[in-house]
């Protein structure tokens, strides 16, 4: 391999712009907090920064694909997932603002501003991760993504559950990272390379026992972050304990970024695909689909239910990953986009139901009984989201599921498809249960909508947009499909 001279041109800076803007925003927010605590100001700074980062994707796209240091490759694939991560972070920030409450002393009792800082840092980690083409980049991105989330999950630290969830996540996440590192070390020992493509090239010839163990360990580390069975045990507890908007971030931005890097690794390193690895992934996928859906059946807590359902959904995504040919990369892109949209909507409703912060989140299913007569718009949003999660036509979720099934059929993965059909049938049961709960009429129930202030209204408008988008993409998905089609992986010739 030729050695890359590190030379930075304007082009490289432009390609890195989204990451730079996000990091800069984090610094500005930090300085602003140091100068004067102001919730509204912090919120506005974060929103502006994230929007600028999103806008800076346009110039970045023009120079893509471009390798920026051996660690990062900014191609259309990276840009697409950056957009997803940034949009999800933006939505989470909006929700956080509603959740923490206004200035009037109502709502969250502690310091509010640092949560934005953590989200921004974590988002920056996500941006690194989706453009990583090197194990070092992968690890830096992953840690930058994960470490702030420990703090985010435990942000409501005076609530025992939140603190417990944060500590649980930290311990298990660290264990996952350790596995990942060990796996990388083994891979390096055998191949002498850390770049995805080079690892693949040097291991394509011979594949020793050591390499296989190394890859297995890396897979464990990543499977932990994606909460795939059997590394899923933390998911329901953490989802339940974390403040609702943070759970939204975990379910969307964090998982999207990890899955994107897994996809790139799997696609670019031939050593990763083929042989026993895809059989192992098949098993993990089937187990995730079945366990996730079956355990979700028993839940009476909406956040736990969504946690288990996310396990199942990442099982579906693994179907596309294992398929790995033809439509597979597109299927992942479409599915992740629809999943992000849907999860944001679902967690958003929980957030607004729990807004402003009052000690605990409104996440028990009985609290949603007859919601239709109290908050018709929130109910409409949650209904669309449940239908979308179940993959029913007229919602974005249907298109995602359709794509994944198409990828599975194309690669003739009949066992996985069987599990998916079975899992969907089980899944319908609990999604419908949530949905019909919303419309159950309670005696002495009056029709009224809870009053809300501006902060809530921004969150509410965002949710309505999310719901409309989920509906629109379900009816006319062509724009999204074109976008994803262009966001294919580029393997740069070395």
């Amino acid at each position: 391999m030729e050695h890359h001279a590190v030379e930075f041109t304007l082009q490289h800076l432009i390609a890195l712009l989204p990451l730079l803007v996000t990091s800069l925003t984090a610094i500005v927010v930090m300085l602003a907090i140091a100068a004067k605590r102001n919730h509204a100001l912090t919120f506005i700074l974060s929103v502006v920064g994230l929007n600028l980062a999103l806008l800076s994707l346009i110039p970045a796209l023009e120079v893509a694909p471009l390798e920026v240091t051996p660690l990062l490759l900014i191609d259309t694939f990276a840009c697409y997932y950056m957009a997803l991560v940034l949009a999800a972070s933006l939505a989470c920030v909006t929700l956080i603002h509603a959740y923490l409450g206004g200035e009037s002393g109502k709502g969250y009792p502690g310091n509010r501003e640092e949560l934005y800082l953590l989200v921004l840092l974590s988002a920056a980690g996500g941006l690194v991760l989706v453009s990583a083409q090197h194990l070092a980049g992968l690890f830096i991105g992953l840690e930058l993504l994960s470490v702030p989330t420990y703090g985010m999950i435990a942000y409501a630290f005076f609530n025992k559950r939140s603190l417990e969830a944060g500590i649980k996540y930290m311990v298990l996440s660290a264990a996952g990272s350790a596995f990942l590192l060990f796996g990388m070390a083994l891979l390096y020992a055998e191949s002498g390379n850390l770049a995805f493509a080079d690892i693949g090239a040097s291991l394509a010839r011979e594949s020793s026992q050591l390499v296989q163990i190394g890859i297995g360990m890396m897979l464990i580390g990543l499977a932990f972050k994606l909460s795939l069975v059997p590394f899923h045990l933390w998911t329901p507890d953490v989802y339940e304990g974390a403040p609702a908007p943070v759970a939204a971030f975990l379910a969307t931005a964090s998982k999207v970024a990890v899955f994107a890097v897994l996809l790139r690794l799997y696609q670019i390193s031939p050593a990763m695909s083929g042989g026993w690895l895809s059989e192992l992934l098949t098993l993990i996928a089937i187990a995730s689909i079945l366990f996730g859906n079956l355990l979700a059946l028993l839940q009476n807590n909406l956040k736990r239910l969504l946690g288990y359902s996310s396990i199942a959904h990442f099982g579906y995504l693994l179907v596309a990953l294992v398929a790995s040919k033809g439509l597979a990369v597109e299927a992942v892109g479409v599915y992740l986009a629809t999943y992000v949209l849907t999860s944001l909507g679902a967690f958003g409703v929980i957030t607004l139901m729990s807004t402003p912060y009052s000690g605990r989140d409104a996440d028990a299913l009985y609290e949603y009984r007859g919601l239709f007569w109290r908050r018709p718009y929130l109910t409409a949003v949650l209904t669309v989201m449940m239908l979308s999660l179940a993959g029913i036509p007229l919602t974005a979720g249907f298109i995602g599921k359709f794509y994944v099934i198409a990828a599975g059929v194309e690669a003739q993965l009949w066992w996985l498809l069987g599990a998916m059909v079975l899992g969907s049938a089980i899944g319908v049961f609990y999604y419908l249960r949530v949905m019909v709960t919303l419309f159950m009429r309670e005696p002495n129930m009056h029709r009224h909508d809870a009053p809300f202030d501006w902060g809530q209204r921004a969150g509410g408008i965002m949710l309505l947009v999310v719901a409309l988008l989920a509906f629109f993409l379900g009816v006319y998905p062509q724009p999204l499909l074109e976008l994803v089609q262009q966001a294919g992986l580029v393997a740069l010739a070395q």
Partner: protein
Amino acid sequence: MILPWLILIPFIGGLLCWQGERFGHVLPRWIALITMGLLLGLGLWLWASGDFTLAPAPGGEPRWAHEFVIDWIPRLGITIHLAMDGLSVLMVVLTGLLGVLSVLCSWNEIQNRVGFFHLNLMWILGGVVGVFLAVDLFLFFFFWEMMLVPMYFLIALWGHSGSDGRTRITAATKFFIFTQASGLIMLVSILALVFVHFNQTGVLTFNYADLLKTELAPGTEYLLMLGFFVAFAVKFPVVPVHSWLPDAHAQAPTAGSVDLAGILLKTAAYGLLRFALPLFPNASAEFAPIAQWLGVFAIIYGALLSFAQTDIKRLVAYSSVSHMGFVLIAIYSGSQIALQGAVVQMVAHGLSAAALFILCGQLYERVHTRDLRQMGGIWARMPWLPAISLFFAAAALGLPGTGNFVGEFLILIGSFPGAPWIVVLAATGLVLGSVYALAMIHRAYFGPVQQDAPLPGLKARELAMVLGLAALLILLGVYPQPVLDTSAASMHGVQQWMAGALDQLASGR
């Protein structure tokens, strides 16, 4: 340009009903009635104006009486492709007619969430029309799954709780899961077919006309056919997978039962005729004996269980299982006469089952029970309704002079040459049919009187609905020619597909 409006009218009408609730409970009903009237009118107009000698047939491009194509998702070769031939026009007209009736029969029954109720009702009917018109397989699947959601709401929110702890939500969920899971199996089949076609031609398309030309290896064809068959069998319903039907029917509000029995079951028969047979003729021919035996089993099993029911709506529901068994036999017979009989039977059963459910609803509004053990002696307590019930019970058992007789007779006579034993056994269904139909009349209307108080008679609206249906059923019974003429070309096409494959199978043995 008229075809998309057939689908859009119910959807738009539904939204108007929903918003119309702001102005009181009566407005949504009128909007829904006008919407359905418009749908029926358009359907009749298309029937009158179309040339229904055009229909898809083996060899050459499918020809349609009316057609509409527009790009939808070019990335995957998906178009909004609607087309109409004799079979679909009959089904659309039936949908419009039963749509009008289901609005009318809910006029008093539904008193809360009127707007939302009619939204769901309209969307079901819009989805059903979409199923009858779509000739792009993605679009077909889209509507096939889409109509489940409003039906779910209809049963779950406005349904009745059944006896012995069967709740309406359980029934609705069961209905949804059965149809959704089987639908996904069909989706896998559709996609497999599309990719086989893609590998042969390099063109990714979901278009019916193109996929008809796909050449399939025998094993693949059989598996794909089974994928389609499972989805249709659940909706049909064929016996091992029928268990959602009695629950859903019994727990649904009257309009829901009318739509379920009247048209949702027909979408399955339509799907077999339009898609499963033409796309997989050889596998279907091979599968035909199994399907026909399943049909026989459904006829007898449905009839026996129907007789054993104490809930009047469950009784009618099981009788649907029995009647649809005849249609299944006919579809796989490969005989033109039987296939035309199947169409007549579908229309006749749509009318008679709808009427019976409407009558059940009217009875329930008066005696507030569906339990036959608590009825009895009603003949003496009210005019009209018992007599009309007797008429429709007689129609259900296939009395000559009603459409059901024509349908069943044609099915049996057409299938006899090909499968004599099956027909002999199926004919016993007619005898069993008389048993349960008359048992229902006897238990509900005759026998000892439970209470003496007279019951309120039928209002003009209620009377008009059932008498209108009775008139149509008699018309179909004595002069079925218009229906036969309309469906002739479509059924001829299906018959050619099937007969060609059956001949090949016979010569191969």
